[in-house]
């Protein structure tokens, strides 16, 4: 019933908070002259947050947050409490607070999907109660990415009902004594799950800052466009600030290049904005604890459901395989296989049953070979080796495709445009081929993933209600790259009740496996716009 959402109660205030306080504006621009964090806290915050005995500010000193979390809190002060703070001072505060009261890498590990704005990420919570109590208006990840003691979690509960008095009247707020629970037992529970002081954080504070300058080998894939590899050149432009230039080559031969600026928060949170062939792209990466690897997601600044994954390793003596493309070969066929990485010197081995027949080209970053999988080659994943570098799970030999899964199998797209302020939010799907496992049945846990395949795409009504409403006719169109483009926002006079172009759809992909057609299906809900889209949803 998503389209006929019977909620009369205002749930979230309409605030579009941008990542403004967070992203580098241009070289040097963010390094505000003059005002340092201590004096900004004093001039902008101390009027309402009293000095404590240890010299900090009440409340402000009692919590740890991600850079996005700090930025949202400061924006909230400006919207709800009339605080005025210029953009450059806000940026200085976010940097200072994220560095001194941030989260350690292992404290953010399970929740990166929300920082990376992964479309269709399934939000998690430690238990169903917490999911309902604290994860129904925003993600639970928003909660899990903060650290406070019980008393501070309790104050946060008071803010919630104090600011949003209808919270206890809404669905899932009125089916229980929401306020009584969130002001008593929940803060105690959260104080134990996510306490202010942790060994991980204390240890991380002692970590030496890494210098990211240098050349990095990158690889990744952008759903809808395919795999890519390339080089990132990173140069220091200030303390924890960098210039970055990126050159990418897609598997289909297309290229992309551009440059921009980055900041590293808390010693490992890489945030960058690049202009990549005219498109503004944001990067949300994390630096590995040994400072050798950057990984995460990047996306279009004004359309964050479109983007890709990326992994980067420092170019240097240590050999690493980052990607194999294509990532699969059918038994009994020949193929040209590219291996991307760093320090790729020495013999190429694609595993048992795969014969490397010739080397097409090679450098220490890319080796291209011709290879043949024997007809009887055991189907399954192979370890790949180039000289001293090896990697598991990057390459698969298959005998036949047994099933196709549409990924993500549950997705949301949003209507938009039509002269309104919000553009439609498309959904990108991929068709992933699988082999049956030893149980001989498709759709079970032992299925073996082969990889992303080209497919023929279509949408259909998901169920009878959708068919009666002709959802597949109104909600939007899917292209042959698996990109679903939703229809225009607003009431549609052609539909019953002049309802909007929301819909409940089955997304179908048909993959051709040497003449056999194999179909997979996913579920897509096309719904209304998201008016409130803060950095942490």
């Amino acid at each position, binding site marked *: *019933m998503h389209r*006929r959402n*019977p909620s*009369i109660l205002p749930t979230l205030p309409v605030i579009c908070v941008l990542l403004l306080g967070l992203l580098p504006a241009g070289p040097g621009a963010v390094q505000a002259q003059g005002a340092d964090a201590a004096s900004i806290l004093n001039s902008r915050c101390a009027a*309402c*947050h*009293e000095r404590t005995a240890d010299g900090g500010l*009440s*409340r402000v000193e009692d919590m740890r947050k991600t850079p996005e979390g700090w930025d949202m809190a400061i924006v909230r002060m400006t919207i709800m409490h009339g605080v005025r703070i210029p953009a450059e001072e806000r940026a200085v505060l976010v940097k200072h607070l994220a560095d001194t009261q941030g989260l350690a890498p292992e404290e953010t590990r399970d929740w990166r999907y929300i920082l990376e704005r992964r479309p269709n990420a399934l939000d998690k919570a430690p238990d169903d109660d917490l999911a309902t109590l604290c994860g129904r208006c925003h993600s639970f990840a928003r909660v899990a990415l903060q650290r406070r003691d019980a008393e501070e979690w309790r*104050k946060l*509960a*008071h*803010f919630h*009902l*104090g*600011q949003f*008095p*209808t919270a*206890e*009247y809404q*669905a899932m707020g*009125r*089916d229980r*004594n929401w*306020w*009584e629970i969130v*002001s008593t037992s929940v803060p105690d529970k959260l104080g134990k799950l996510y306490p202010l002081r942790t060994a991980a954080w204390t240890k991380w504070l002692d970590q030496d800052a890494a210098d990211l300058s240098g050349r990095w080998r990158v690889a990744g894939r952008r759903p809808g466009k395919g795999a890519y590899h390339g080089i990132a050149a990173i140069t220091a432009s200030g303390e924890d600030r960098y210039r970055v230039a990126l050159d990418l080559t897609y598997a289909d031969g297309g290229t992309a290049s551009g440059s921009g600026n980055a900041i590293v928060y808390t010693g490992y949170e890489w945030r960058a904005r690049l202009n990549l062939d005219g498109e503004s792209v944001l990067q949300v990466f994390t630096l590995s604890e040994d400072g050798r690897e950057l990984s995460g997601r990047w996306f279009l600044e004004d359309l964050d459901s479109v983007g890709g994954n990326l992994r980067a390793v420092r170019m240097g003596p240590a050999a690493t395989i980052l990607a194999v493309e294509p990532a699969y070969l059918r038994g009994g066929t020949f193929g040209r296989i590219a291996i991307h990485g760093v320090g790729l010197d020495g013999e190429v081995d694609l595993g048992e049953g795969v014969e490397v027949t010739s080397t097409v080209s090679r450098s220490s970053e890319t080796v291209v070979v011709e290879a043949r999988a024997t007809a009887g080659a055991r189907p399954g994943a192979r370890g790949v080796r180039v000289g001293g570098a090896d990697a598991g799970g990057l390459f698969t030999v298959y005998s036949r495709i047994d099933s196709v899964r549409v990924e993500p199998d549950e997705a949301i797209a949003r209507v938009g445009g039509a002269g309104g302020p919000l553009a439609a939010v498309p959904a990108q799907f991929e068709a992933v081929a699988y082999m049956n496992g030893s149980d001989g049945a498709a759709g079970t846990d032992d299925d073996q993933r082969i990889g992303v395949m080209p497919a023929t795409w279509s949408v259909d009504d998901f169920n009878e209600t959708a068919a009666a409403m002709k959802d597949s006719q109104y909600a939007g169109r899917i292209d042959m790259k698996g990109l679903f483009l939703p229809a225009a926002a607003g009431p549609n006079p052609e539909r*019953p*009740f*002049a309802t909007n172009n929301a819909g409940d759809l089955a997304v179908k992909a048909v993959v051709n496996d040497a003449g056999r057609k194999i179909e997979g299906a996913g579920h897509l809900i096309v719904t209304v716009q998201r008016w409130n889209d803060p950095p942490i949803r």
Partner: protein
Amino acid sequence: MLHSFKKSALLGVLLALAVAPAAVPGAADAKDILLTGVKPDKIVMVDVKAREVIKTLEIPNAAPGNLTITPSPDGKIAYTIVNRWESVSGIDLDSGKEVFRADFSSGKTRVKAMFAMDISPDGKELFVFQSPVKLGLGEYEVQDTRVAVYNTADGIGAKPVRLMPAPRRTAVMSLSKDGKKLYLLNWDLTVMDPMTGAVVDVHKVRNWGRANFGEPDILDVWPQWETAGVFSTPYYVVRTDKSPDDPAAYKTGLLTLDLETDEFKMDGFEDTAVVIFSSVINPVRRNEAYMVYTTLSKVDMSKPLAERLVKRINLDHTYYAVNVSSDGTEIYVGGTMDDIAVYSTADLSRIGTIKMPDGGDQALSSLRLIQR
């Protein structure tokens, strides 16, 4: 009303000649007038049988709009929750002047009226359910909810004469006909002494304890009991002895409370098929209820379970509020957008439309019926 329209009109004329020309509430010549609110700051009076807006009154400092409307028993004043739910304004429907105002919040405490409001039968006391929060330096502190009682005679700047602790999540509040009971619908229907705030009874809703049923869910914020003297609301409940995949596990029912006799009933009428926001009871055929949201339903609770849903039609858009004429012949659906649609209680046929002036939205405003 047992007499025909003609008879009553004739009687009205006779009465008007015989006694003073001023409208006497409840007198046979009195017309049904609907009161609704229009964003951001208007109260609209509708002569509903004439299908005509007769007056639009402006409420001072009302933005972004008004919520609950409570008419005085004599139909002369409309009290309404305004100003981000932080004030009640009483507007004299004849002069258009603000004659009552209570602003709840102070610098240190923010107080919001949460939907529920009613007035004593003698019109002297106004009961407002409030949710306060203390605004500290750098932190908030939620306070217990309460009913604030105001003397309507205190006029502009009225302060509460009594504050009575009341259950959280109260959404509708009604005084019994004799003014001796204050009903608060929250998780249960709490019965309070309006003088002392003492809880004198509880009609169990969430805690009804019926075997094989879960806890009923209600969200109703619309006071629509004035014509029949019966408070009513739809409720939803899940059968715990049926599979969650079974559509028959989901039931919709009707809760009714007779404000004269205190008779309280909760009874099902269908497997949940549509969402319903609010309901009203026919003052003449008191077993009949009408309910709205995207549909208009007519339910007869005197029939066997399978026949209770008498008729259901699709509405042209969503309507939150519903009321019924004092002769029980017409249904008025309103709230949400900029019109009130009129339907016949006999067969749910559409018999009229009243457009709000300037296309203003009624949103969450109540739709109240007075006689003048």
